[in-house]
């Protein structure tokens, strides 16, 4: 018999030969060092490849993949609205506190009478008053457009709320998120 072919070597190692073929191969191997070497080498190679360490993903791989999966599942409108409620509440709170301070500086800023800061506050107060006047005016206009003859204090509150929400959404979309992304 000739030396074992490559196919025979692999088939022998993988146990893919039928009994007759295997007997013939083994009989040859018993008398041929070259083919014994070949089989031994191939076995060592297979073992070496099997025992190579597995490649590792970076440590945050699972977390990042899960985030991607879970985020993709939550793109519903209600989720997106909820995402913005937090920043809207924060902005309303800031505006209310600022408005309260600026509308009653005499009570809160007693003893803090230097002219630079009081002029700063008065200009802030003017600005705040102008803004609230503008909101109120536009809310009235909105109220008249939608409610017309049936306009009541309740519809005026609804119109004001709507207007404020639109302004907040705009601020959130174009200012707040950009500031957050800047990672101050």
């Amino acid at each position: 018999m000739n030396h074992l072919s490559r196919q025979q070597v692999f088939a022998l190692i993988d146990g893919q030969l039928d009994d007759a073929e295997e007997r013939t191969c083994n009989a040859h191997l018993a008398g041929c060092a070259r083919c014994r070497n070949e089989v031994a080498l191939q076995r060592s190679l297979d073992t070496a490849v099997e025992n190579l360490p597995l490649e590792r993903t970076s440590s945050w791989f699972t977390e990042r993949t899960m985030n991607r999966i879970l985020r993709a599942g939550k793109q519903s409108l209600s989720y997106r609205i909820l995402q913005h409620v937090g920043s809207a509440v924060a902005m309303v709170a800031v505006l209310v506190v600022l408005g309260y301070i600026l509308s009653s500086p005499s009570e809160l800023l007693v003893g803090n009478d230097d002219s630079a800061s009081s002029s700063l506050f008065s200009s802030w107060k003017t600005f705040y008053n102008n803004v609230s006047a503008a909101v109120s005016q536009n809310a009235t206009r909105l109220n008249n457009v939608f409610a017309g003859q049936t306009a009541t204090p309740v519809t005026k509150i609804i119109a004001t709320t709507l207007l404020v929400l639109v302004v907040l959404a705009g601020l959130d979309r174009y200012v707040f998120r950009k500031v957050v992304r800047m990672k101050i």
Partner: protein
Amino acid sequence: MANPDYETIQRILAGEKRAYAELIDRHKDRAMTLALRMLKNREDAEEALQDAFVRAFNALSRFEWKSSFFTWFYRIVYNVCATVLSRRGDESFSSVDDDEGVTGELPSLDKLPDTDYEGLEFRRIVQREIDRLPPVYASVLTLFLIQDLSYDEIVEATGLPLGTVKVRLFRARGMLRDAVIGALDEGSQQSSQRKVALKP
């Protein structure tokens, strides 16, 4: 059923989405090994693997247990990596001639290279040469030896016909063998030259 993947997948399908992390942890390193052997670049491999996990998650309800989860999942990894390779313009992967004769004579091996076949140096050479194998061969060899898949499972995981799997596997092992023998010969020549040079 004693299959941990089966139990995990039932929980995910029942709405416990976070249980998918267990499946990722269980299979990511083996799958990463396959992806890296194919793409040869850690960043690309990790991105492809992430894509594959997201796709598998989205298709999980359609998985019918005709094969094991990981065989099914390897097929997704294999396909994603194949797409990356073709996007790179690597045509070696899609246009392989699997009909070419494979009855190459074995180069004579009258004497085994004098090496410690369980040693670190041998393993280092094997690792280097397997990293150098073309993706088309590295992929089947990895599935066969590292993932310990049977021929039929490799057929399942690659979508290739059985004959093609056998031919590629045969070539992959032959190429690796020749490359490793070449590296060992080179190494022994260098060391014997060094010994000659050291003689007074």
